[in-house]
């Protein structure tokens, strides 16, 4: 069996999860502030990828990042290649899928931190950023980590957005999910079965990990 699609899935999902984690936690931190204009609108925009069809998301990304778009053209001028239908496009597709899972979990975790702890940090001389990094963030790390793991599982398995934005280029954007699709279409049932079982095993491991993580005592530092 060709292992390249699996390896590619891992590479793409890892980079996408890292990007989505930084972005997702930053967005969650802003949304957890006491007064934010349009909080629920921002939250809805971030959450939309969970309910919109992948084709719709992929189409938006094509319009936003395509070779005719200002962003796409700027990217091409700097790097010499387009974002869409490249490995970068696959990363962005996986990231968009993972982002809502991470930012939702991070927001819930950050909002559950006792505000008096943050207040205490402030009166002890901590700037808002230091209080966030040294109190809010460590106290919500379990919840955030659970979100990151779910996000990774989601990024690993993305099909629709990737196909729309990055296509199905062997070695570039043909991730495991796309390889399964190919295998089925070309009658390689054995390959499809093996890849499917591996993907299922990975997803189950992540879900069990998340379950164990949330079962641990919250005060068990």
């Amino acid at each position, binding site marked *: 069996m060709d292992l390249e699609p699996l390896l590619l899935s891992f590479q793409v999902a890892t980079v996408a999860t890292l990007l989505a984690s930084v972005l997702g936690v930053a967005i969650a931190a802003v949304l957890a502030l006491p007064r934010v204009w349009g909080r629920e609108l921002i939250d809805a925009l971030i959450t939309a990828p969970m309910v919109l069809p992948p084709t719709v998301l992929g189409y938006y990304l094509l319009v936003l990042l395509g070779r005719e778009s200002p962003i796409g053209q700027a990217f091409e001028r700097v790097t010499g290649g387009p974002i869409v239908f490249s490995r970068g496009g696959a990363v962005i597709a996986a990231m968009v899928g993972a982002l809502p899972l991470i930012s939702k979990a991070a927001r819930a975790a950050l909002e559950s931190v006792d505000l008096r702890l943050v207040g*205490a940090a402030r*009166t002890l001389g901590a700037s808002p950023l230091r209080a966030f990094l*040294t109190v809010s963030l460590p106290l919500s790390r379990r919840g955030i980590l659970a979100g990151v793991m779910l996000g990774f599982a989601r990024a690993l398995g993305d099909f629709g957005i990737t196909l729309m934005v990055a296509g199905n280029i062997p070695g570039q954007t043909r991730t495991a999910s796309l390889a399964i699709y190919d295998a089925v279409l070309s009658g390689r049932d054995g390959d499809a079965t093996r890849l499917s079982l591996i993907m299922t095993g990975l997803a189950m491991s992540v879900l069990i990990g998340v379950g164990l993580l949330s079962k641990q005592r919250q*005060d068990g530092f």
Partner: protein
Amino acid sequence: MASEARLPARLSAQLSLQRGQKELGFTLEVGLEFEPGLSVLFGPSGSGKTTILTAIAGLLAPARGRITLGDEVLFDTQTGVDLAPNQRRVALVFQSLALFPHLDALGNVAYGVPGRVRKAERSELAHAWLTRMRVPHLARRYPSSFSGGEAQRVALARALASEPRALLLDEPFSALDRSLVNELGSELSAHVDSLALPVVLVTHDRKLARELGREVTLVRAGRVECVGPAGEVLPDHD
């Protein structure tokens, strides 16, 4: 121990908060003066005491008012001054103590040590405060394992290690039994006298207020009713 050649400052606060702000059931309108040393802010639960402390510490902005510490203006709605909590150097010990559960006692106390102190000296300084509060043995233990009295001592060490120019204590001994209250109360009195900074202790414990024997400001439903020696403001009804 690092200290600044600064005269002890008087803490003065004129605060007014509207009914409904911060779930207040009344309009809060107080003028308070606290000289260096220990003062007691006394009132029944729900009279606005905690709100007053939170506002002085800068965690809540009053609708109108002016807060000064010595000649420094911390808050003034007329001139638009509103120093951030971390710039006020007013330490607030919450009723819940709010010890950081993810840090050990040493980490908690070192958290507030001013940034200008070199890294190597921070934990030394924190250790010295734990020793002064008679809990050096807790240094490497976490708050979830502290008894009520131990947590109280660590919280006080943490507040003092931040070198505050004023210290606010919200119902500091409320969860402790009587003998421990008396012990900690007299220890606190001794510490405060050596520190020369305004320390405001909020309580609704008549006995504690009388025993501390300091000036008492009596607050009821968001107003100052009277100010004076504990014996006069809080006559013993027993």
